[in-house]
């Protein structure tokens, strides 16, 4: 009952936010200085052609009318064309999306595994070595520019130690990409038992994933530590110990299980920053995902992809937040209406 009501409220909020996002994206395209017709045709188009395009795009109509047309196009999957690649923006996105997903997932996985372990270790031995390490990492991790960390790692592991390949893409140039299933090279090469591609894709993935993973590592560690300390000091953990349960069972199944609830929402919040960071990391490592695409569009003054990306990423991010909230139902039975 209460769940259904909460869900209803949550969905209403989502609709509202998505509407807001579409307005912002629409404004970026239509109201602020800059001519979308020209941006579609490119800087070399004649004024006549631009006028024709304006009429074709409905730019001579009123704003609300334009918004309706715009959203109609968006729903039909028409996000405009990139004059740099000569492709529909939607097509370009679909092509590059898996690379970004692969990078973000790998980074998140690293950050969660490392952050949760470190946070637990810090909470178990307060003021111990791991605790100090966690505090230090926490403050350093949020202070360093992610693109600079990437370059430092390249200096260390590529140009000095020569243990990892140069930051040029997702695979060695002499290795063929695995058969496309998910678009994530590591997953695809696993699924197709393509060990050569797996090895190469992992080698190329390590540095960018570590670089991007540093971003959410600090907050995840900090949150895990705090939640874990609270759980370990709780009455229910004391009661569980009085029952004679093993230390592992108490720490992992009871304390950690409870501590993970706030950590999950933290991870959800980090996704937004992760997408932003991914843009920078992809530039540094020439990782051909959405970020690099965005960068090249910026450099080439190709506006359609940039503005569409704001819309897509905004909506995507709102959906991810919804998913995280839904996940709450699965892991926290106490949730009612907030």
């Amino acid at each position, binding site marked *: 009952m209460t769940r259904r009501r909460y869900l209803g409220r949550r969905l209403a909020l989502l609709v509202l936010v998505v509407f807001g996002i579409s307005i912002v994206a629409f404004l970026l395209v239509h109201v602020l200085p800059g001519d979308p017709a020209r941006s579609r045709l490119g800087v070399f188009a004649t004024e006549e052609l631009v006028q024709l395009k304006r009429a074709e795009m409905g730019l001579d109509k009123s704003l609300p009318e334009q918004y309706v047309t715009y959203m109609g196009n968006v729903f039909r999957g028409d996000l405009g064309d990139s004059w740099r690649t000569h492709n529909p923006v939607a097509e370009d996105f679909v092509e590059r999306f898996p690379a970004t997903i692969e990078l973000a997932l790998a980074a998140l996985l690293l950050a969660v595994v490392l952050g949760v372990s470190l946070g637990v270790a810090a909470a178990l031995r*307060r003021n111990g070595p791991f605790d100090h390490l966690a505090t230090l990492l926490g403050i350093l991790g949020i202070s360093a520019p992610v693109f600079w960390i990437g370059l430092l790692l390249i200096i260390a592991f590529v140009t000095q130690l020569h243990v990892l390949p140069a930051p040029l893409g997702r695979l060695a140039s002499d290795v063929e990409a695995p058969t496309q299933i998910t678009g994530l090279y590591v997953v695809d090469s696993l699924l197709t038992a393509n060990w050569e591609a797996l090895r190469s894709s992992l080698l190329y993935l390590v540095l960018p994933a570590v670089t991007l993973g540093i971003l959410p590592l600090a907050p995840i560690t900090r949150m895990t530590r705090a939640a874990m300390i609270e759980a370990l*000091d*709780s*009455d*229910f953990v*004391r*009661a*569980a*110990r*009085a*029952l*004679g*349960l*093993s*230390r592992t*069972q108490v720490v992992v199944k*009871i304390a950690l*299980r*409870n501590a993970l*609830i706030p950590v999950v929402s933290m991870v959800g919040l980090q996704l937004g920053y992760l997408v932003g960071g991914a843009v920078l990391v992809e530039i540094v490592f020439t990782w051909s995902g959405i970020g690099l695409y965005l960068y090249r569009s910026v450099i080439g003054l190709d506006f359609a992809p940039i503005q569409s990306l704001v819309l897509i990423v905004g909506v995507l991010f709102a959906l991810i937040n919804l998913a995280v909230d839904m996940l709450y139902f699965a*892991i*926290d*039975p*106490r949730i009612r209406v907030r």
Partner: protein
Amino acid sequence: MSANGPLLQVSDLQVHFRTRDGSLEAVDRINFEIGSNEVFGLVGESGSGKSVTALSILGLVPSPGRIVGGDIVFGDRNLRELPERVVRTIRGREIGMIFQNPRASLDPVRTVAVQLSRALRAHHDLGRGEVRRRSVRMLRDLGMPDPEAALTKYPHQLSGGMCQRVMVAMMLSSRPRLLIADEPTTALDETVGAQLLEHLRRFKEEHAASILLITHDMGVIAEMCDRVGVMHAGHVVEVGPVGAVFRDPRHPYTRALLDSTLRIDRDSPLSDIERIPGTVPNLLHPPPGCRFADRCAYVLPACRPAKPPRLEVAPGHHVLCQETVIREFAAP
């Protein structure tokens, strides 16, 4: 195991809490014992060290507290000398503990069924069906309405009394020989509290168990206990059979406690003990002599410089007080 010795013997137990300003002597060289099939009560105001004593027995003193001295002999084993691995097998199986706040003591994100199964499987290898049968039976025995349905519930969906029943079921599931109950009725309303006490008594009779009952309610002590220890500021100031202690208290603090219980109306929300004038001394820098001296109506000059001796005023009846005080105060 010696057949007639006490089930639990606590001697010279010392628990300190390390703080920034020094060591806090929460429990200072206390002595008491609990016989088999006996209910032993521990009374005292909050902060007197009752709960810390109870947690010491289980080896669960929270950080920064630490047992720094003394022995805790359970049966024929000194718990302080056993490795954690062994103590763990005693916790829950041979010594159970019921906590003050039942809801907070249950895992908030697991159903009752999971938590009962954890308790049942902590020390015994049981199949799923058996776990379920036993869970239902235990809850029914404890007077839980509709135990089958209760199994599927989370703690936040249950009343305080029901949470208490779940916790008691968990703690009694292995039929411990010693059950520690720390203020078990404080969080409950009167009827539910009375039912719980009745259940504890029945458990004790049926399984020949012993109970360490911590409370600040003298009425509960009178009703439930065979012997009682009175704690004040980290000391057990008087210990003996309930009848003797109640009829003929020998320590001024016990006397004050009993007087205040008899004097006041039962409806007052204050606990009996909180009506005794004065405050517990600062345990960071306790006075060198008797810790009750500043509040004591019978205080003598001799009380302040030296620690009071432990005197046996009658067989099994010990008092931590200067002999002269006891004599003067027993005179009228």
